[in-house]
């Protein structure tokens, strides 16, 4: 019973990490760069949703759509000012620049939104459903569903559409892609916009189960990045499944051995897994076509 409860609980938690990690996967797949402001994008989505829905009392649909649009713009800003200038010069400083811009956003939100965590009410996190003796909020079922749906969408876009293949061509050989008429800079900017939309959406889904605060993205961002690496960052399915596995393992260790062992054992397992499979559980070594 203890294990069953842990699996259900861990699945819900892990899918939150997976959902956020999909954004890391997307930008890496298209541009070989990672947006370390992903946690901040998640926070931005949640904070804007709270502001529109609770503070300004807008209709819920507008409070979801507008923040997603703003997150997309934020993603473009991140790419334009903290990734593109460094990649052009062959520098890896975008690592630090994206992280720094995320910190700037967190502090800007701290001063404008406020210093205290707030609660974002949702009818999907009000009354739990009973599954195997454990109450599960409908939102906890929606999160993995959304995650798997997005992973499927990414998979189909990359495999079955011309645009998806164009995106993959950008990372293989940007110059050749440009010669073939693909707008390389535009493609990368769109990837960043979509990745920020994923993060903002994840923030809105997670906030009713947690809270809304300027620093909420920090913890999730770190774990989501660990999950992205564990799953194999170029595999959307892998990232999502690694997220769920990570959450379940974390919960199982806590339930079976006790909370003092959770982080020690979980991260030891992550290191072992990556030692055995350096490209992640579901990733493949990159092939450079020449």
């Amino acid at each position, binding site marked *: *019973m*203890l294990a069953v*409860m*842990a699996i259900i*609980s*861990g699945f*819900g*938690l892990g899918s*939150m990490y997976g959902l956020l990690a999909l954004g890391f996967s997307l930008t890496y797949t298209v541009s070989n760069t990672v947006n370390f402001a992903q946690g901040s994008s998640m926070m931005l989505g949640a904070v804007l949703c709270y502001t529109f829905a609770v503070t300004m009392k807008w209709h819920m649909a507008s409070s979801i759509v507008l923040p997603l649009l703003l997150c997309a713009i934020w993603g473009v800003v991140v790419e334009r000012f903290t990734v593109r200038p460094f990649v052009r010069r062959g520098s890896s400083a975008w690592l630090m620049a994206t992280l720094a811009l995320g910190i700037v956003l967190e502090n800007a939100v*701290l001063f404008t939104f406020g*210093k*205290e*965590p*707030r*609660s974002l009410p949702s009818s999907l996190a009000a009354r*739990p459903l*009973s599954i195997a003796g*454990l*109450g*599960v*909020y409908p939102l906890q079922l929606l999160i993995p569903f959304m995650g798997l749906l997005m992973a499927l969408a990414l998979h189909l876009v990359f495999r079955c559409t011309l645009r998806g293949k164009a995106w993959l061509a950008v990372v293989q050989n940007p110059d050749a892609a440009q010669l073939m008429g693909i707008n390389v800079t535009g493609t990368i900017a769109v990837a960043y916009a979509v990745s920020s939309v994923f993060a903002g959406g994840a923030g809105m889904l*997670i906030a009713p*189960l*947690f*809270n809304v*605060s300027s*620093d*909420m993205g*920090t*913890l999730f961002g770190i774990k989501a990045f660990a999950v992205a690496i564990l799953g194999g960052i170029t595999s959307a399915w892998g990232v999502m499944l690694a997220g769920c596995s990570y959450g379940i393992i974390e*919960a*199982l260790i*806590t*339930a079976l051995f*006790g*909370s*003092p062992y959770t982080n020690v054992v979980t991260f030891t397992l992550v290191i072992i897994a990556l030692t055995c499979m350096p490209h992640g559980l579901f990733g493949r070594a990159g092939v450079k076509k020449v």
Partner: protein
Amino acid sequence: MVRARAVRTVSFWCVAVSALLGSLAASVRAAEPIKVGMVAALSGQSAKSGEGITRGLTIAIDEINARGGLLGGRQLTLIRRDDESNPSKGQIAARELIFKEGVAVLFGGIDSPVSLAIVPLANKEKIPFMGVWAAATPITRNGAKPNFVFRVSAVDELVDKALVQYAVKKYAAKRPGMMLINNPWGESNEKGLTAAIAAAKIETAGIEKFEANDVDMVPQLSRLKAGQADVIFLVANAAPGAQMMKSLERMEWTVPVVSHWGISGGRFPELAGKGAQHVEFIQTYSFFGPQSAVGQRVLAALQDKYPDIKGPGDVTPPVGVANAYDAMQLMALAIASAGSSDGDKIRQGLYAIETYEGLIKTYHKPFSPENHDALNENDYVMVHYVGEQIEPLAK
């Protein structure tokens, strides 16, 4: 002759100017404010605690200044710094207040890890450090000689005894479990609760820990449930405490939750939802019920100064306000008794306080070299949330 007269004239003017400068310097010194430093959480999960402490200190300082200040008319000035509940930032803020601002005394905030980080600095620099919320036992019992750390607040060791006694008396607890925040404050309470449970001759169902940003605590709670816990002792601040209540609600486990007071330092009722009403926790003061003359005066001053306070229920968190008010008044008595803003003399001044009729109680010899805690288990009151308000439980 002319030369001698010139020398006399110059001498006269030198003496006159010196006297004038001397008297000017004396009057400047008299007018120079006594700086009171405060390092507390003014942002983040426990921001409300910092606001409460600020209000308690401010009301006390206003009263003292209205009486003519201290040390011959010097006014008190409060200088606040935000520790963001982060020990490193707290220590940096304390350093800045001591070395740059030159504060005479320091007041602490809600977070025990932050206070524990400031303790060695206060003892080294000989600056009296008054705790008004953080309850970890080693804050005042830190082994330093001389010890510059004092407290008008609860002490974990005593709180833990009171919580166990309450659970045994009200719920006939035989197998309580612990849910503790994974930091030095949680550790301090783990020791205290373990000792108190052993003293009550009952056994624990388990000790579980969680991080401040944990979302789901079902695994930890499942272990306690499997261990047949009949009461849960909660030690956490508002946000993680709220996550625990949400997890409990999802498990549909209606176990009594008896909590330390950290949950009252933030927006616990909003974050925890309806689960907040089921937690019983400890405070050192309640503004509800019949109030002493001091209580009436402080409540009136609070209502006068802060428009959001309409009645006793709006003084949140009451413990921050009440502890800070009494602590500031006691510190003022010590400064007056010391006759100086020198740290060591103020420390001696705190020992010299005989009687002070305060908000929480009438203090008789609140501090001595052996005891740096002005409050004890007889000063605690059990409360719960009714809506957003903290109200005392029927005894």
